[in-house]
């Protein structure tokens, strides 16, 4: 039976808190395997997506703590396994929830939060697109890479233009939402 989106969100929040109460690496390893098994098709992509944002932080912590253990002669492997596995399990749970839960539907009971989320998400895409457009335009018009000063000036100009465009665009979205009755709460 498919679970409702608010229920999935609630389940995810409960699971994340529960994972921080588990302190046995073997249990966390089992959980990690279980999530990968249950997440179905695309599990490798899911695992890579979970790993990407945390890998450098985990590597830095692990390398630093291994070095500290080596210097002080302390056994650090069990603690490192616990910390790494816990971070990975939560990261995997998060990307799984994001993939299989529609946040718009999960937030259906809170229309203002939902509206804010929609507009902010739209703006983020707009900013990303503007920055990409600017980079491509700069690449296509110059045979040599820009100097640091040119980059700063260019970034400032594009940033302020993006702000103006963003405000204008968001006002249009709000007007459109209002005309369709989306703001009548």
């Amino acid at each position: 039976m498919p679970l409702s989106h608010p229920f999935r969100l609630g389940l995810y929040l409960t699971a994340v808190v529960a994972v921080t109460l588990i302190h046995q690496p073997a249990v966390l390893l089992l959980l990690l395997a279980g999530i990968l098994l249950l997440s179905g098709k695309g599990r490798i992509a899911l695992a890579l997506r979970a790993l990407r944002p945390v890998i450098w932080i985990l590597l830095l912590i692990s390398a630093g703590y291994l070095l500290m253990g080596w210097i002080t002669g302390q056994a650090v492997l069990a603690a490192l396994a616990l910390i790494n596995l816990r971070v990975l399990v939560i990261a995997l749970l998060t990307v799984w929830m994001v993939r299989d839960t529609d946040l718009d539907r999960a937030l259906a009971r809170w229309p203002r939060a939902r509206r804010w989320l929609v507009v902010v998400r739209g703006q983020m895409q707009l900013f990303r697109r503007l920055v990409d457009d600017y980079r491509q335009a700069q690449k296509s018009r110059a045979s040599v890479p820009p100097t640091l000063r040119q980059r700063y000036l260019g970034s400032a100009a594009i940033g302020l233009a993006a702000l103006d465009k963003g405000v204008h665009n968001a006002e249009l979205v709000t007007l459109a939402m209002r005309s369709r009755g989306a703001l009548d709460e």
Partner: protein
Amino acid sequence: MHIPDGLISPQTYLPALVLAAPLWWWAGRQFARRVGDEALPRLAVFTALAFVLSSLMLPLPGGTSGHAIGVGLLTLIFGPWVAFLGYTLVLLLQALVMGAGGITSLPVNALAMGFVGAWTAYLLFRLLSPLRAEVAVFVAVATSVLLSALLVALLLGLQPLIAQAPDGSPRFFPFGWSVTLPAVLLPHLFIGLAEAALTVLVWRHARKRRWLPASVSSTA
């Protein structure tokens, strides 16, 4: 300076949640009272800008990351309560969309960067308002970034003291203050200055476009 999920103990994030929840509720009330439909698009744009600013991250040896925050800018334009709420949304989106920060660490990150950052910027800006406005913005934002970083470093360094296994090994973040304080604070000294300069630039633009509230415009 986001703290990821899994590095913060329940002994830290549960009290932080108890502290943050009524503040979020109160901020929500302030938001409903102060932000009308006409200001919402602008708020969304500046929230998105804060998202972009704090998404450009560099992992730091202290177990966190270095990046601009953007909460000072939100504060100067919308006030500290709305900025706190807006930045909480930024943190939530970053946790869900980019995997930066996290859900259990959300109250800790929101309090350190959103609440403390916003109120530091707001109070310092008010205090320094007799000075040239750009100087007040610069000092307020740079100090707010540093203070938030200090709080994050203190909370991270606290973990090995409060969450240990019976054999004394850490269950969450393993390094103490001797590592977290220099590792988090030193990079944020430069990040704070860069963010303050950037905020002055955008703040001047906002003033030119008359996006600032009357109370801030009158001090500028």
